[in-house]
């Protein structure tokens, strides 16, 4: 019999469609979320008295004022950027270093242990991290630096760094493992030291994966809400200026995400305050999109070379 049974044909078509729907759903969800956020905020955007440029560049954030509510997010953007950048300065060397150690330098037994511990680290809920920031780190920073309050950029950055490191480590380690062993053998066979081999051969070969690891860490840091809300002090303030050392790590700040989390529950639905929080959502969406897009372009650029 050359004809396949009807049942088999139908089953195959069915399976194909289920898989297709699964694939498309990812795209649909992203668009749906974006549309929803946009929809919630659109009333204010098109109301005529909303100046987007002013929204971005002024730092007065008085959304609850009776007579004169002002919505300026530059301080919030500064908060997000400062905490994220400082967190990455701490997390990237640690994360990549740990990935290198686990992948190349440690014994198989230690490797298994470390991987399990790092996965455990990734599984700690963010509110627990926030709690650590609020209590332990707070006191530590007050004592070490004599600061009046320990809920600062530095506190949030350290907490965020601790949260991003497991991601950077596990993705980075995967990237290093993906480099074929023949590269290692070829390098070592040339009589160079292990470190020279890692530096000259392994890192260039794994750079795309390592870059992806770092950017996923950045994504995590930008999007994190609860921990930074608890650890950074929640003060609308720009923590840097034009003079050295530029960034004041012991200032309290407030991030975009923390603002949404803290204020959304307090606002009346469809009030302008409510809508402006959704515009902040769009802004966050745009920032993470830009980060991911840059990452893609860089990776493609590296490949095309």
């Amino acid at each position: 019999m050359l004809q396949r049974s009807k049942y088999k044909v139908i089953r195959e078509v069915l399976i194909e469609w289920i898989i297709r729907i699964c694939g498309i759903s990812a795209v649909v969800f992203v668009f749906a979320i974006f549309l929803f956020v946009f929809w919630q905020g659109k009333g204010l955007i098109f109301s005529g008295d909303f100046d987007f440029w002013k929204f971005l560049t002024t730092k007065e954030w008085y959304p609850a004022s009776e007579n004169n509510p002002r919505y300026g997010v530059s301080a919030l953007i500064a908060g997000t950027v400062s905490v994220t950048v400082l967190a990455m300065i701490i997390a990237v060397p640690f994360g990549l270093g740990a990935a290198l150690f686990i992948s190349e330098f440690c014994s198989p037994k230690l490797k298994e242990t470390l991987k399990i511990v790092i996965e455990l680290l990734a599984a700690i809920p963010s509110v627990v991290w926030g709690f650590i920031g609020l209590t332990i780190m707070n006191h530590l920073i007050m004592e070490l630096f004599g600061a009046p309050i320990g809920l600062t950029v530095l506190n949030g950055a350290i907490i965020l760094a601790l949260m991003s490191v497991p991601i950077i480590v596990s993705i980075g380690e995967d990237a290093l493992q993906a480099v074929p062993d023949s590269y290692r053998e070829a390098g070592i066979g040339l009589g160079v030291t292990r470190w020279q081999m890692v530096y000259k051969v392994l890192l260039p070969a794994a750079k795309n994966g390592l870059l992806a690891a770092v950017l996923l860490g950045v994504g995590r840091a930008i999007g994190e809400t609860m921990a930074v809300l608890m650890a950074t002090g929640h003060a609308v303030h720009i923590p840097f200026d034009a003079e050295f050392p530029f960034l004041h790590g012991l200032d309290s700040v407030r991030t975009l995400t923390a603002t949404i989390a803290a204020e959304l529950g307090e606002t009346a639905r469809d009030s302008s305050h409510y809508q402006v929080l959704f515009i902040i959502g769009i802004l966050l969406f745009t920032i993470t999109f830009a980060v991911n897009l840059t990452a893609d372009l860089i990776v493609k650029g590296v490949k095309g070379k």
Partner: protein
Amino acid sequence: MVAETAKLNIDGLKLSYGSKQVIHGITFDIQPNEIFGVIGPAQSGKTSMLKVINRTIDFTADAHVEGTVKMEGQNVFHVKDVYEYRRRIGMVAPLPVGLPLTIYDNVAFAPRSFGMKDKDQLDELVQRCLEQAALWDEVKDRLDTLGTMLSGGQQQRLTIARALSHQPEVLCLDEFSIAIDPVTTMKIEDVLKELRNEMTIILVTNLVQQARRLADRTMFLLNGDLIEVDETEKIFSGNAQETKTNEFVSGAFG
């Protein structure tokens, strides 16, 4: 064959991975400036033997080595500086491994790592190695393109140039012709005939005829046992001492 003048002495070499023994005690020596052919079917321990010789076996976690390997009388497992030792040995893998660097950097990688910084000196060395590997004319105008962009045969010659870059005393070739065409193979074989004046060559090959063409002496390994080692003429004459050797070189198995 007087032992004192040998380049390499391998004595009672046993190698196991975990509980699985892959080399069961082999003893032979390699003379200076000879081309030493090693033949045998897959799983004979040929590649593992090379890994022991340049001590990259150190990185295989469950490998266990017994017996001695001596280079000019010195036990290679007791050398003070293993990196220094590995530099004395050039290794060419079966499939070309173009490191993710430019052609120039591929060849300059090892000398730079040992501290050679002078640009003219490096240029000269890179050119000489590429010439020795019969690749210079094909790549001299594009030394700054990625080594991985070359064709398979060119990449293999690049790995040979790279192996020559640290001026080894012993050059190990592990089935180098597995991924390249016959014409390129012949080109490289000519190169090897030249190189033997400067160094000792261990030629592990899957083509028994290649050993016949090039090797002064040939060793036949089978399942980790040394069946026979003798003058190449003798091995291929059909009158080798062991019947298994005669059967293998005449294509009865393997």
